[in-house]
């Protein structure tokens, strides 16, 4: 359902991404791995319409959406859980969730909110608190819940487990898996490779702005050594 081919993105003179290709399929979890600064975030943002790619193409649901503005991409059913949460800090928890449902059909909002409160009871408890007061992990839950509110067909997630306690990582990842099982496509960047691999179907490794390896999760698990080596090397030279 998502087909990204040979994406190139730059920040002024800095070529952050040059040659990332990714695919995501309905009902499957695609895991993107890569070192710090490899260009994962940049790729995701470009796909979701926050950044205009210099070259390459993004096809979603049979249509070319390369360079389409973010708010239109959302309406087509693709949503991004951004890196660093990007919660609306002065708004309340509930208002944040409502915002998530902005593009969703009217009737579904109340129901969606209730569902999210059920998954994350802590959010229900603090529903009228300003989101800025939540702890880091609570905010991460809110970001995840907010994205769910739009009832996406495809969800892009930039490190959804960041800052979450192990129990919560389990809960989030298993609900991600459950979503995929209902037919939603997932494209997920995850530093916690082990946890990510547990729920992933396919894996892509990005290094220095390029896709360098793709395969199934099983292949990746088997060739763990390869992936590790790749990540390790990247980590060593620090960029």
């Amino acid at each position, binding site marked *: 359902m998502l087909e990204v081919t040979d994406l190139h993105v730059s920040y002024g003179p800095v070529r952050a991404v040059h040659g990332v290709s990714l695919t995501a399929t309905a009902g499957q979890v695609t895991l993107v791995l890569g070192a710090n*600064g490899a260009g994962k975030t940049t790729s995701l943002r470009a796909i979701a319409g926050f950044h205009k790619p210099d070259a390459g193409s993004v096809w979603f649901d049979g249509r070319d959406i390369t360079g389409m503005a973010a708010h239109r991409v959302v309406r087509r059913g693709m949503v991004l859980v951004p890196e660093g949460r990007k919660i609306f800090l002065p708004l309340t928890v509930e208002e944040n969730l409502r915002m998530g449902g902005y593009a969703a059909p009217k009737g579904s909002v109340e129901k969606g909110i209730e569902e999210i409160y059920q998954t994350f009871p802590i959010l229900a408890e603090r529903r009228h608190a300003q989101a800025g007061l939540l702890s880091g992990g609570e905010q991460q839950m809110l970001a995840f819940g907010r994205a769910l509110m739009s009832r996406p067909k495809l969800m892009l997630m930039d490190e959804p487990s960041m800052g979450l306690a192990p129990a919560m990582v*389990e*809960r989030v990842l298993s609900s991600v898996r459950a979503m995929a099982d209902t037919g939603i496509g997932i494209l997920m960047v995850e530093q916690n490779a082990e946890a990510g691999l547990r729920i992933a179907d396919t894996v892509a490794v990005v290094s220095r702005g390029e896709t360098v390896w793709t395969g199934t999760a099983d292949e990746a698990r088997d060739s763990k050594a390869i992936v590790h080596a790749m990540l390790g090397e990247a980590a060593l030279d620090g960029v």
Partner: protein
Amino acid sequence: MAESAVGRQTALLAMEDVAVHFGGVKAVDGITLEMYEGNIYGVIGPNGSGKSTLLGAMTRLTPSTRGRFLLDGKDYTRVPARNVHRMGISRTFQTVRLLDDRSVRDNILLGLDALPKQTRKETAMQVDEVMERVGVREVAQLRPDELSYGMQRRVEFARAIIGRPRLLLLDEPTAGMNTAERKEIGKLMRQLCDEGITQFIVEHDVEMMVETCDYLFAMNVGKLIAEGEPQDVVRHPAVQEAYLGKGAAADA
């Protein structure tokens, strides 16, 4: 090791019955603990259990509702937050807080700016050295908003250690890094500890905590639920349930 010293050596930092309440929210609720020089302490606990708040209270940025803080046996509960850094307590933040229109190098130097001249001369590290160790040498002149998230965290880390604090408080220093990178940072923490920097780390990566820390605290809803050797703490049933979610994972 920590417990062997109890009773003889004064704790580097001690807390007595510390509580931080926000209206009805009891973020930290009666914590008593001690930390001794030369160790790495870790804190684990579910989201919202009060770890960051505790860190904030230790640096006095977050006012505490009750309790006492002692550094070298001296009460600093009433010392204003701005003086805490000078006393040798340095911290990082859970969300990256860097100056966006200053270079990486400048951001790191900020860690020295308000220290007494003498400290700067005698104990501080060289900025180039710090950048090298943390792995941001290559990007010294760039601005933080030109860096990826993981790199920004490293800059934050570098700023906290450049003044060679006696006690280093780290709030999820490796969030957003992969396993290999975490190992790197873990190694660096160990080195720093050997150089005499006592550390207090909030982290969710249990594996890394067990590997790196000498002593572990576990928190839940504002209270300590376990402490001791990392292995033991992780195996503690209360921790297993509240934090690692063995029960929760099963029914998910």
